[in-house]
């Protein structure tokens, strides 16, 4: 198993050092650098090519949301962004997800939760904290009104099975769970997910979930 290389971007030294200590104590995870603000984070990503970036939302110079957008926008960028927040459900976190973040994490998370989040996001097989993420997306996809019309047209490109898989992703199911639900091999699901992401021009399943809600493929139900 290869080591997951992590970059920590936060304007508070306490957070950077703290998370560095906690993550370095975990097997298979290595903190390779720290960034003190958004601009620094963009530069460090280009320089160090980490697998995962822990990104604070509120930072001087360049905020975490815009930094996330710049980092994840280039086609072929494989780096995953994990947003750090003081409060779980708020519009900033949702904006960060829309901007390209793969998940979010509370700053007071335990060391175990922190390590788990980094591993899940790096693997990309499942949504991080599926219930919470689903709730967040469901709640804010109704509020945010920036239209995504061009994307909407592309839903037509998906096959029936792919559309089915997309809606299951949006409901927070992992690849393994989807495989079980559709009675197919996990590898098949993986290739479905890959094709969905390519066809829709999305970078990961979090983006796919946001996309599914915003296009109305999945309707927010009682939560």
């Amino acid at each position: 198993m290869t080591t997951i290389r992590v970059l920590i971007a936060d304007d508070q030294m306490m957070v950077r050092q703290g998370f560095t200590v906690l993550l370095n104590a975990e097997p298979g995870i290595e903190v390779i650098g720290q960034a003190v603000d958004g601009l620094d984070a963009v530069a460090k990503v280009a320089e160090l090519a980490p697998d995962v970036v822990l990104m604070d939302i509120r930072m001087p110079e360049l905020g975490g949301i815009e930094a996330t957008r710049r980092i994840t926008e280039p086609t072929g960028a494989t780096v995953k962004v994990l947003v750090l927040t003081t409060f779980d459900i708020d519009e900033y976190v949702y904006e960060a997800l829309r901007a390209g973040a793969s998940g979010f994490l509370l700053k007071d998370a335990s060391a175990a939760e922190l390590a788990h989040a980094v591993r899940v996001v790096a693997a990309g097989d499942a949504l991080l904290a599926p219930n919470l993420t689903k709730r967040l997306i469901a709640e804010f996809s109704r509020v945010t009104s920036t239209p995504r019309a061009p994307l909407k047209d592309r839903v037509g490109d998906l096959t029936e099975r792919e559309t089915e898989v997309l809606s299951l992703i949006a409901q927070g199911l992992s690849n393994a769970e989807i495989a079980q639900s559709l009675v197919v091999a996990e590898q098949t699901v993986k290739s479905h997910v890959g094709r969905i992401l390519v066809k829709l021009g999305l970078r990961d399943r979090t983006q796919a979930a946001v996309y599914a809600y915003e296009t109305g493929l999945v309707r927010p139900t009682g939560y």
Partner: protein
Amino acid sequence: MEDKGDVREGLMGTLRGDLWTMAADPLPRMNGPRWLARLPHVLVVVCAIFMVQSSSYGSGQDPTIPVLAMLQATALVVAMFLPIPAWWASTVIMVIGALIVEHSSATWDIPRGGMSFPWSIHLMALQAGVLFLLALRVRPRVVAETLGITVLTGLACVYFVNPSIGPGEIVLAIPVLVTVLAVGVLMGIGAVLRGERVARTRLFRQQQLTAAERARRTVLEERNRIARELHDVVAHHMSMISIQAQVAPHLVKDPPVELTENLAGIRQNAVEALTELRRVLGVLRSQDALAHAPQPTLDRLAELAGSVRAAGLTLAIETTGEPRPLSPGVELSAFRIIQEALSNAMRHAPGAAVHVKIGYRTDALAIQITNTAPDRPPPPAGPGHGLLGMRERTAMLGGELAAGPTRDGGYEVTATLPAMKPPAEDPP
């Protein structure tokens, strides 16, 4: 017969209420500079003096006329402060004039001989002045009543002085018609001026209310915002504490168990504080959302009834009287009281049937919520703030609330909320 008696009694009651009073609108404020504020008083006094002065000239005139003019002039000045008593005085002076004046200066020729008014033109002008000042300050209905009484009394006086002329002819005599018409028009003008002023005042008050409401909401929003920011800041520091407490054991080699446990305790407390903060913040946010939502009124009673019935309560709603929109405070409180009473019934009287009565009375809204005895023992109830809240709401509006068990083992809440019908400007 009894009906007629009732009607007469009602009419007398109305007249007594309207005319046996000192009450009148306050003097309207002058918009001009301060030193002009007493200008109307000065004008009225000057006018009164002038009338008294000029009433004493004229040959062959009854010497009592200047005296009556002086009294009538006094009534005119008093009308500035107490229009209705002044009008009574003025009417009495008119009758006295008719009894004692012998040679009036106001005499006309009419088809069948001469007709004399028992008063001079000055007396009538002064009295007209009193009526005009009255019309500026009282409701149109009172204007109509006083005008009617004055005209009828005046006609009786004229008939008393000119017994040779029949009552029918007096009513149709040109001088009488002209006088009545003039007084009527004068009072009409007064009433219209008052009406405009009242409308303007009401508009102004409305604007003030709106401004006050806006200010209050701004204060609330500001307070909410501050609370949120404070919570944000505190939460941030709490997060830092939790991170540091978690990192600290990693900073030393083989940390002693006591230290690790202690730090775990610190972290635990920080995390709990954060959970609490998030909860409060959630409340603040949802309150924010609530502040913008319209407050419920009795219109939404059907909706409430629906949800209560869906929860398994047998509910009947009965409305008596003619429903009318009430002030928002009364509407909201009535809705909340019913809501609270229903939720109490659900909690304390499972399986009971609930009867809600809403009575629109002329001066109040009466609400009664009665439930029958529960068909099974209620779950142990904790102390509730329901009744207290209901009482506070009712007291705030100056109403009454009574609550207690009924004889058949049920419970009853009765509330009476004062809700005056908007004062009708015109008699129906």
